């Protein structure tokens, strides 16, 4: 599978996790794609931590307004019923448990639900932005990422990079399958039939609990 096909597949599967009325925050990169695949009968309120709820599609030339951007700084539109607010209220919404689902990428996730996605010491120090607050405060945290990085596992027994938060991840969606973090460990819930279970185990450093996983919907 090429990289774009993987990303689309992951985005499509994540989009099935939303319920009508959910407040959802989509991170930069792959998670942003999720918005394109939300089923038509499911109406969610997309939140952007720079200060809006009701994120609409990319603007056309006519609707472009440099004063409306998402948390990635890209131009966006606001849907009817949407609104703007300041950063303090934005993070009251986030930390206060008013965001139902947050979807973000990660460099590493581990079997205890800890994640690391904001710093590679000595190499890359972009900063945590709103990620630490989002994963700490949101009701459900979904990691949307490719299963490995250049063949190296990203789903580990323990993260080795500095953490973004401890024990906050609920679900991991990759091109290989869907995993859930539970109190007894990391469960493989669904697998992509393009891969064997053995392939998935081999690409995962964490111990997987495998109990009749379903086939992942990859249409």
């Amino acid at each position, binding site marked *: 599978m090429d990289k774009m096909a993987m990303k689309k597949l992951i985005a499509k599967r994540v989009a099935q996790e939303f319920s009508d009325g959910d407040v959802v925050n989509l991170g930069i990169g792959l998670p942003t794609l999720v918005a394109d695949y939300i089923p038509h009968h499911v109406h969610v309120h997309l939140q*952007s*931590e*720079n*200060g*809006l709820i009701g994120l609409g599609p990319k603007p056309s030339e006519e609707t472009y*307004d*440099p*004063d*409306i*951007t998402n*948390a*990635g*700084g890209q131009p966006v539109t*606001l849907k009817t019923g949407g609104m*703007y*607010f*300041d*950063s*303090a209220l*934005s*993070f009251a919404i*986030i*930390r206060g448990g008013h965001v139902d689902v947050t979807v973000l990428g990660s460099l590493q996730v581990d079997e205890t639900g*800890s994640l690391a996605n904001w710093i590679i010491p000595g190499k890359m*120090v*972009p*900063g*945590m*932005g*709103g*990620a*630490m*607050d989002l994963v*700490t*405060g949101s009701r459900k945290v979904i990691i949307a990422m490719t299963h490995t990085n250049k063949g190296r596992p990203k789903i580990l027994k323990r993260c080795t990079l*500095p*953490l*973004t*938060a*401890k*024990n906050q991840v609920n679900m991991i969606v990759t091109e290989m399958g869907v995993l859930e973090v539970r109190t007894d460990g990391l469960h493989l819930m669904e697998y992509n039939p393009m891969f064997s279970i053995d392939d998935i185990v081999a690409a995962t450093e964490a111990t997987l609990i495998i109990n009749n996983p379903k086939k992942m919907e990859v249409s």
Partner: protein
Amino acid sequence: MKQFMELKQLKDHVFDGMSIMVGGFMAVGTPEALIDELVLLGTKDLTIICNDAGFIDRGVGKLIASGQVSHLIASHIGLNPMAGQLMSTGEMQVTLVPQGTLAERIRAGGAGLGGVLTPTGLGTIVEEGKQVLSVAGKPYLVEPAMRADLSLILAYEVDRFGNITYNKTTRNFNPVMATASDKVIALGRKLVDELNPDHVLTPHIFVDYVVMEVQHG
């Protein structure tokens, strides 16, 4: 509000070694004209408090590029490669603060609070050197309030009293920063006779000076 002022008068309000809060999120909502003037003035050794490092040619990134910033307190610096370089060479100190914690520390600074208790950062390097308090059985990090000598904010409509509204996502950190500095200078984009009192987002009592943006074209 004390008065409207000209951009050139910014020189009377800045000094080397001062701390400045600057509104904006990836430069959206940053008062660019005030930043440009500060670059011209060459005020040095600044501590800048801003959501991010902007871009090399936009937002607080311009102050970083001109070497005027000795300490940047921000949640993210990834879009300004120069900020990362200056941090790694030690020419600029960078303190990274989770975005929600940054907003709330500033809010606390303006609200007369000593700080805030937040679960954000627990179990990470953000926790290092900080006190952890347990309230009703749950752990929280103690994050101190933050204030600065000056706040530079971007307003949208300004009335003759200095009441302010903001436009769309340019609002971000501007309203909280308007409460948390000894002096507040706003760049206004539209001067109006009157604002609906219910629509005022920053009351004029927080604003010391307003500079009206020169409309081009």
